[in-house]
């Protein structure tokens, strides 16, 4: 058993000092403990409360638990050491700690979410209720001027609320669901996302440049990548600056460390300095005048980034707002020819 745990053949262990199986940095202390044990040999476990380490033949260390049992034969004193490899137990403990920390974080998010939902989901409902009462009053009074307008308002608010609920579900899903890794062309995904927003682009008159998106095939979670593209592109288009003569949106993809960096830049309204961190939180919106947003888009982008092992950054310089999305990849991007 000792041979198996420490990785030595029996012949290499018999007659050797016990220090052979202890990491060198612990030798000095161990010598002191050993001599003090010999002075007072009682059956007990070793080094209670301390993290004990064993040393394998290949030089690797592992956590151990050791029980000591003094044995006297004639006038000779021996100590039987029962050594237990507790690597697995330690790993399980670590896993429990990590899962616990994750649960604490999820719970905090849930509290924040419930708080926000009490405003953002309830607000349109309260307004709908108020508008319905107006219609009722007007019908009773026989004053029809506002009735149709208020019906339209109720319709628009219901639609907004329904989109909001959808976004909430998407955000919840982003955290829970494991998404599959697959190979996809980055340039194709960017183009597809731009096509999904072509109406918004034409409406707001934004010039789009994706010439710096190389035709790379990458392996990643395409669904998350699509959602990130959709959110960053629709933000850039919706928050374009109506005062500007030429409105621009640039998408760029390049290598970065062990992965890729996706940059979405626009010369739109920008994000005020006091909001640059807050926009990534749920239900936070930077611009009172642009009202279509649910305030969940960037929270979702940040969740995706975290699940992909990357992160997302925002910077505003010289009238340009840039979102940088870093994604580590396990395999190199592959250059593809024109389709």
């Amino acid at each position, binding site marked *: 058993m000792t041979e198996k745990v420490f990785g030595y053949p029996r012949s290499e262990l018999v007659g050797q000092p016990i220090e052979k199986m202890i990491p060198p940095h612990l030798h000095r202390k161990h010598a002191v403990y050993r001599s003090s044990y010999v002075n007072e040999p009682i059956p007990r476990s070793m080094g209670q409360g301390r993290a004990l380490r064993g040393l394998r033949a290949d030089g690797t260390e592992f956590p151990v638990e050791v029980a000591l049992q003094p044995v006297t034969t004639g006038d000779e004193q021996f100590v039987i050491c029962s050594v237990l490899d507790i690597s697995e137990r330690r790993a399980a403990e670590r896993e429990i700690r990590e899962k616990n920390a994750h649960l604490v974080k999820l719970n905090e998010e849930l509290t924040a979410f419930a708080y926000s939902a*009490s*405003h953002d989901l309830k607000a349109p409902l*309260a*307004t709908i209720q*108020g508008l319905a009462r107006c219609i009722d*009053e007007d019908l009773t009074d026989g004053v029809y001027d506002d009735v149709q307008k208020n019906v339209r308002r109720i319709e628009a608010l219901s639609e907004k609320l329904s989109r909001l609920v959808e976004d909430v579900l998407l955000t919840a899903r982003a955290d829970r669901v494991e998404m599959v890794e697959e190979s996809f062309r980055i340039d194709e995904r960017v183009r597809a996302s731009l096509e999904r927003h072509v109406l918004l682009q034409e409406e707001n008159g934004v010039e789009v440049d994706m010439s710096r998106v190389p035709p790379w095939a990458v392996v990643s979670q395409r669904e998350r990548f699509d959602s990130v593209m959709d959110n960053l592109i629709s933000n850039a288009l919706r928050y374009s600056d109506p005062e500007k003569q030429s409105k621009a949106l640039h998408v760029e993809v390049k290598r970065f460390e062990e992965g890729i960096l996706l940059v979405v830049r626009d010369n739109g309204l920008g994000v005020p300095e*006091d909001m640059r961190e807050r926009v990534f939180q749920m239900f936070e919106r*930077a611009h*009172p005048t642009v*009202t279509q947003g649910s305030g969940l888009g960037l929270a979702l982008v940040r969740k995706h980034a975290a699940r992909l092992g990357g992160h997302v950054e925002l910077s505003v310089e010289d009238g340009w707002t840039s979102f940088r999305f870093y994604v580590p990849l396990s395999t190199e991007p592959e250059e593809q020819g024109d389709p």
Partner: protein
Amino acid sequence: MKTVVVIDDSEEDRYLVKRALRRSEVDAKFVEYDSAFSALGDFTDSHRFRENMGAPPPPALVLLDINMPRLGGFEFLERIQAEGVAAGRCVVVMMFTSSNNPSERARAAEFDCVVDYIVKPITAEKIREIAERAEFRSGAVRDQS
């Protein structure tokens, strides 16, 4: 004449206040802001304040939404309180929100200038009721000055 100020990013909710005010037959000037930011300029500049709200007595009633983009109702109150506006010009603020959250009620109660917490949607009856109280309040403050 009194003034009713509503600070709310929702166009529909401002419409509902305006309408409830009309139906309540309370005689008051109606001033609206679509963000706490735009209101902040008027509340912290005494000249603009007089121009927009009328000569003293100051606004009888400010209906302030809690949840607005960028600058929320509570942040707005902190800002005007820091500038001494609320105390100096006795702005009577009612928090105006869709949330019936107890912790927000408690937070609202901590501000001296907040006298009520109204859960949306607002009604003409509610406007009448608070207008009576607001009149009492502004009168009381005027006596002190």
